[in-house]
């Protein structure tokens, strides 16, 4: 089907505010009389709070309020499992946990006041490693987590938050069928999302005592619900005002400091702004879970995988509160099966409490961890079997009708085509110089589900306004939605405007996340636009001029006091039977004298649906890929005894413009997605296979296998030395 607007490469038409500095992010919201909130954080990983004395801080000029746990309600908050206090009450469980909060006339005075709050701690035994935490007799991070609201039932140890399990066939029987069994263990690091906008929020009580909220949060309706609980107020008393979000990547869905900002606003009777310093982000944001993954695979002589068991221990930190999934776990655990048909499968993810930073969701939660293990493991098996790593993959790739780990049977499987496309574009078979290696890795990502309201209204000037409760986290989603409406109604893109609803307008919305927006927002907008189109036709018929302009039609209705508008609520509960495959090839050079890895070129192939905006689509691929590159090579929140030492972007390094490799992107079009005009999703498709592709390329280049991320020059160097020593 040929489209007019869908598939056209639109620049960021919605971006004038962003390039001129006019866009108001949460931290930019300034209200009359506004004051600043700052939090005092625990310096210890596990301790009893013996005494808090805020009297000297309260006496400082410019300080309006100091709150401790005694001054806020004794309740627990969370996105799914409610286990986190507003302020530490009797004990602190990680370095960076909030103990007190100050409101002052300026941010420097508020920070100064923190130094005057005296807290006496009695240090408790702490546990930092998830493997230690699940031993009998390990220090307990929480005494009775099963009692928390939202806590899953299964709990093999009091330090286990949750268990997520995927099962196919009979794994023990499967291993008995195998000729060879391979087992390897992998580790991935703690890593922050790296969004440049730290969490920010402004809370004001208006003249009707309603709570007005501006926050860097991508799920405004869920935020309203969570705030209603945290603030013990009916939802109607809370209004979330949508603002642009300065990068999300999974990290901007929690309450963060908002309940404290509210209590400061309540006490001071002033609007309160709380903006985290980047140091606080790195110390107490909600980063990607570190993992220890053990992969065990049974293979027949001819390279067919018959059984797999994958076990992931995720270091979840001191609270489960930041995880939004009903499982209170990471869905990426299912990626232990990779892109392969495996008849007997047992995949398990354990989220474990420790006295470290509480982790949350990050772009394709759990997948970069699992796929690093899984796709490295595949190459290690191929090597042991004396098989080409591509050939081992080919023999096991998913095909039409195969089941994923979650039991869903797939249609329109394009795994082989995607792999072939990546290999062809990367010159996989071409000879390469000494010290240069190539590595391949694959993955797949579902098309997200959720629910969204969209409202479309015909304006008297003949344009259409789309009203939506979804913020744009930077993906260009709003432009995609405008394209969908323009396509349906036969308008130009400029004739469709977008308007952001506050949480007063709609009943609910699942917000941004999980690769869902093009699908759910797109379908809501599509069906709303279809409804409006019918109304317009009916109206034209009534007027007796079927080819009347939209303006004429709208004006005619307006004269009768009517507005032509339509709302559609789209709710996708279960995943479609399709997925999106990714195949990537890294070509690297390894400097044998230093261990330094240079990515010479990178190829990424994607099996996609109808592309609505090619420019935005490509932007998602490129951005995710460079995040994957950072995760593979450099990004790490280094910790020792629960304390993070990389507390600035000078120490926690993100890739710069000079660290990006030449990139080839291949699009394998298929056009069978569940989104509008059969679109699929792309936001989380490019990040996960990058690290294993690079690890496999390093192994190819110099023979050393790095099984713990990031792949630093130092690790490669010492591994090379070890190998030299052995030979």
């Amino acid at each position, binding site marked *: 089907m040929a489209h007019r607007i869908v598939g056209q490469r639109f620049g960021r038409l919605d971006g004038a505010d962003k390039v001129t500095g006019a866009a108001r992010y949460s931290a930019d919201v300034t209200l009359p009389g506004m004051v600043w909130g700052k939090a005092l954080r625990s310096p210890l990983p596990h301790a009893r709070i013996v005494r808090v004395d805020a009297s000297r801080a309260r006496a400082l000029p410019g300080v309006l309020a100091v709150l401790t746990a005694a001054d806020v309600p004794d309740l627990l908050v969370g996105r799914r499992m409610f286990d986190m206090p507003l302020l530490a009450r009797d004990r602190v469980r990680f370095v960076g946990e909030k103990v007190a909060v100050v409101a002052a006339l300026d941010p420097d005075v508020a920070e100064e006041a923190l*130094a005057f709050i005296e807290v006496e701690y009695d240090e408790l035994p702490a546990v930092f490693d998830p493997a230690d935490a699940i031993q009998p007799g390990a220090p307990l991070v929480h005494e009775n987590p099963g009692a928390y609201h939202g806590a899953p039932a299964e709990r093999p140890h009091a330090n286990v938050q949750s268990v997520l399990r995927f099962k196919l066939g009979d794994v023990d029987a499967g291993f008995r069928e195998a000729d060879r069994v391979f087992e390897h263990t992998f580790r991935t690091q703690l890593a922050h999302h790296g969004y440049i906008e730290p969490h920010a929020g402004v809370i004001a009580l208006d003249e009707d005592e309603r709570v007005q909220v501006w926050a860097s949060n991508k799920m405004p309706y869920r935020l309203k619900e969570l705030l209603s609980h945290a603030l013990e107020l009916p939802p109607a008393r809370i209004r979330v005002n949508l603002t642009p979000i300065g990068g999300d990547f999974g990290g901007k869905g929690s309450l963060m400091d908002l309940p404290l900002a509210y209590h400061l606003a309540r006490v001071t009777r002033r609007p309160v702004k709380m903006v985290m310093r980047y140091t606080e982000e790195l110390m107490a944001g909600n980063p990607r879970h570190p993992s220890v993954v053990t992969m065990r695979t049974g293979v027949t002589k001819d390279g067919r995988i018959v059984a797999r068991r994958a076990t992931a221990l995720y270091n979840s930190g001191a609270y489960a509160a930041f995880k939004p999934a009903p499982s209170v776990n990471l869905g990426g655990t299912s990626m232990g099966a990779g892109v392969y048909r495996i008849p007997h499968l047992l995949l398990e993810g354990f989220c474990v409490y420790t006295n470290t930073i509480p982790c949350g969701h990050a772009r394709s939660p759990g997948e970069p961890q699992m796929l690093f293990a899984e796709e490295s493991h595949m190459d290690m098996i191929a090597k042991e079997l004396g098989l080409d790593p591509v050939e081992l993959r080919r023999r096991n790739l998913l095909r039409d009708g195969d089941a994923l780990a979650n039991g869903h049977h797939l249609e329109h499987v394009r795994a082989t085509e995607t792999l072939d496309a990546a290999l062809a574009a990367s010159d996989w078979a071409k000879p390469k110089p000494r010290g240069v290696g190539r590595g391949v890795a694959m993955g797949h990502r579902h098309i997200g589900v959720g629910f969204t309201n969209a409202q479309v209204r015909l304006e008297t000037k003949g344009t259409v306004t789309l009203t939506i409760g979804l913020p744009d986290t930077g993906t260009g989603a709003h432009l995609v939605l405008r394209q969908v409406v323009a396509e349906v109604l036969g308008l130009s893109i400029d004739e469709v405007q977008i308007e952001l609803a506050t949480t007063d307008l709609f009943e609910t919305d699942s917000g941004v996340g999980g690769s869902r927006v093009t699908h759910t927002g797109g379908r809501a907008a599509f069906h709303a636009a279809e409804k409006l189109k019918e109304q317009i036709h009916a109206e034209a018929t009534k007027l007796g001029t079927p080819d009347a302009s939209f303006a004429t039609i709208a004006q005619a209705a307006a004269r009768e006091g009517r507005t032509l508008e339509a709302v559609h609520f789209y709710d996708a509960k279960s995943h479609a039977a399709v997925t999106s495959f990714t195949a990537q090839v890294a070509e690297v050079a390894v400097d044998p004298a230093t261990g330094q890895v240079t990515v010479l070129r990178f190829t990424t192939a994607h099996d996609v649906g109808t592309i609505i905006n090619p420019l935005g689509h490509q932007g998602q691929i490129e951005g995710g890929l460079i995040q994957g590159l950072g995760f593979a090579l450099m990004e790490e929140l280094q910790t*020792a*005894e629960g304390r993070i*030492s990389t507390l600035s972007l000078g120490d926690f390094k993100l890739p710069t413009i000079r660290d990006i490799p030449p990139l080839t992107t291949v699009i394998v079009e298929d056009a069978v997605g569940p989104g509008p005009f059969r679109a699929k999703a792309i936001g989380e498709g490019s990040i996960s296979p990058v690290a294993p592709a690079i690890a496999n390329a390093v192994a190819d280049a110099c023979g050393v296998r790095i099984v713990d991320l990031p792949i630093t020059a130092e690790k490669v160097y010492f*591994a090379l030395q*070890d190998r030299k020593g052995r030979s």
Partner: protein
Amino acid sequence: MGGSPSRRASFRVTFTQECVIPVEHERLWNFLMDVPAVGRCVPGVQTIEAVNGSVYEGELKVHVGPIRLALEGTITVEEADAPAGRARMRAEANDRRLGGGIRARMSLTLSPADAGTRVQIDTDLAVLGKIGEFGQPVIKKKADAILDEFVRNVRSHLAAVTP
């Protein structure tokens, strides 16, 4: 598998200092248990006074370039076993302006040596809060230097009073 043993920067620093002091066990022990006197061997100590039999209060100033720490806190003698020549102490101190502080556990072990008495000092130092957040490598190096000078001072002090 790759990776060198001590790849990460730690917040916790452990040192062992060892030296032989040319005095007999009992005199050395008595000197070392005189906390204010020993305290004055720590470079930068401003004051140190007994609060009771096992708790002492004091102030230590440390400069690292533009960073000025004024650490106020306590030293608690947790164990003092004279016959065994073994003592354990805990020090906790905070800098109010910077926000943050240090916690240290020290254990002292005396044992006979050819030319006097061997002293072994094991220190486990944690640097917390603002100080620990940014100045880690600096503070670590500084703590090492302070402890070095302390041992030198103890030696020269005892050498001076040794007949």
